[in-house]
């Protein structure tokens, strides 16, 4: 099915942030010379006194956010996901996570769907890094509606969060709005034969895969795991028990991402055959987003293929 394209999730983030800014005076925003791309520019325009452009210095930006949070502000901190997580990591570790401060990090241009800019700007490890910060919640919304809900949930969540948003327009998965809850999977489709778990852009791909599988008589359950951490282990256990096989798809390295979190939970509670769709120890390259997703196997077809492999094992 071709789902209509909605706003880019970074755009939805920028709009939701400005909206939150109107309601909550304690919110301040920091950006690393990318406000035109991360879309914090909307907030900056409306609340210039509460917006701080920190230039191209991500490590300092994270520490400054920690200081603001220590004084009761609720900072949202943005840059490209790659620079934010990879250059600010030690500061997130010590100044934020260890200190338990309430800072919200939103990385834009996550994944390889940023396209032509190439490897240095593509974030394929941000979720692994964010998951390695004790106390951090990690969210990867699928479309503009999910993003709006996730950004509000992040603001409400007491403690540090990482949210990944993307560059390209995202297919609409939640035309009627998204009832996102921290730590809860969202079941988008029921099915008893196999479960497809995904987040971000891969949710739409998983739904497409489920439709393709349905044409073959296979009923796939689809779970949107926008909440990577905390993880809905009960939903996964039920899926394992009721469908007997799980495929996880993410626009991320396999190492340390959603798939690895799901694999550990399932292996501990209810082992079933699993398949994983993601980048297997490789960076991508420059190219058009759709080309890259196809070349690096981040597609509905690959998800369906893995599902068939898993089904064969499960039988």
């Amino acid at each position, binding site marked *: 099915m071709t789902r209509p394209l909605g706003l880019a999730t970074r755009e939805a983030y920028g709009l939701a942030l400005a909206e939150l800014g109107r309601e909550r005076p304690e919110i*301040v925003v920091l950006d690393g010379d990318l406000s035109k791309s991360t879309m914090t520019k909307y907030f900056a325009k409306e609340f*210039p*006194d*509460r917006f*701080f452009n*920190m*230039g191209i*210095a991500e*490590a*300092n*930006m*994270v*520490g*400054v*956010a*920690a*200081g*603001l*949070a*220590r*004084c*009761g*502000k609720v*900072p949202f901190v943005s840059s490209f996901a790659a620079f934010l997580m990879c250059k600010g990591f*030690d*500061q997130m*570790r*010590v*100044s934020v996570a*260890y*200190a*338990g*401060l309430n800072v919200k990090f939103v990385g834009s241009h996550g994944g390889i769907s940023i396209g032509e800019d190439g490897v240095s700007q593509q974030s394929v490890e941000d979720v692994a890094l964010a998951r390695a910060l004790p106390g951090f919640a990690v969210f990867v919304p699928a479309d503009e509606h999910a993003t709006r809900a996730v950004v509000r949930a992040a603001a409400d969540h007491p403690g540090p969060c990482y949210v990944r948003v993307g560059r390209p327009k995202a297919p609409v998965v939640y035309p009627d709005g998204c009832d996102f809850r921290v730590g809860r999977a969202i079941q988008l489709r029921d099915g008893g034969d196999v479960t497809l778990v995904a987040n971000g852009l891969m949710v739409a791909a998983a739904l497409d895969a489920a439709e393709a599988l349905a044409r073959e008589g296979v009923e796939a359950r689809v779970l949107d795991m926008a909440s990577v951490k905390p993880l809905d282990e009960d939903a996964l256990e039920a899926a394992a028990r009721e469908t007997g096989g799980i495929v996880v798809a993410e626009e991320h390295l396999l190492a340390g991402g959603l798939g690895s979190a799901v694999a550990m939970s399932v292996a501990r509670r209810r082992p079933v055959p699993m398949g994983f769709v993601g980048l297997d120890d490789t960076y991508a390259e420059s190219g058009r987003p759709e080309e890259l997703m196809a070349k690096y196997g981040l597609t509905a077809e690959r998800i369906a293929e893995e599902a068939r492999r898993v089904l064969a094992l499960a039988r």
Partner: protein
Amino acid sequence: MTTTHPAVDLDRLRDRARELRRAVLEMIAAAGSGHPGGSLSAADIVAALFFHELRHDPHRPDWPDRDRFILSKGHAAPVLYAALAACGYFDAGLLRTLRRLGSPLQGHPSVRDLPPVEASTGSLGQGLSVGVGEALAGRLDGRDYRVFVMLGDGECDEGQVWEAAMSAAHYGLINLVAIVDANGFQLDGPTDEIMDLGRLEEKWTAFGWDAVTIDGHDMAQVVRALAVPRPDWGASRAAGGAARGAVAGGAMSGAAAEAAGGAARPRAIIARTVKGKGVSFMEGNNEFHGRAPTAEELQRALAELAAGGAAR
């Protein structure tokens, strides 16, 4: 430069510093590990801050208007703990639990475990950024507190320090003070052999700060350098607007401000110090960067301190 406190009893502060040194040595010896060298070099400055310059209230560690002190060179935690205990933030008996399982006195300062600590540090290079954030918050809220951040000289190798320095100047944070405990050593040896800092004061000046170099063990110089006027954001807003810092009313005075032409610059204090200051066999002996004194060494050190020793 005049201080806002009309009469400063320098001798009292010197005594306080000596007490901090004693507590540092006892606590590290009891723990069996820790960093004496950089705790001792910082003791005079920490004493001048906690017992004179800082506006703070041990009964209200979260008082929004408190002056803040961030120990960016977190391995000198013992001198911070000693000062907090002496001020009454917690019972001095706790000092003997330093580095023990379950103690709030972690090996490096931890906000999570000890709320009067202003920032969790220990990975060098991070404290000044947190200070920039606290100073920005003060400006945003129109509060007149100041934020003092102490760094090591070796720590100035870290690029994040210069990112923070640049941003503080950009945002005109006249409520921010960086103090470099320039004791001439880092872990592996003398700073000029390991990673030469060159003309450190010039670096801070070039990064837009009002930089001064002092003798970090001369209590009169220390007190004078720390006397940074409280920000008057109303005046600075009127003069310059919100997005960038501007002149801080008439509150700034003295040679440094004059030299700066009254510009709204954060203050950097390069404090020349002696690593291990106060204990003859620790002074300039970088072996004591990160090892505890033995029981015998402790006794010798305490005797020296009690006798007034090298500390004065």
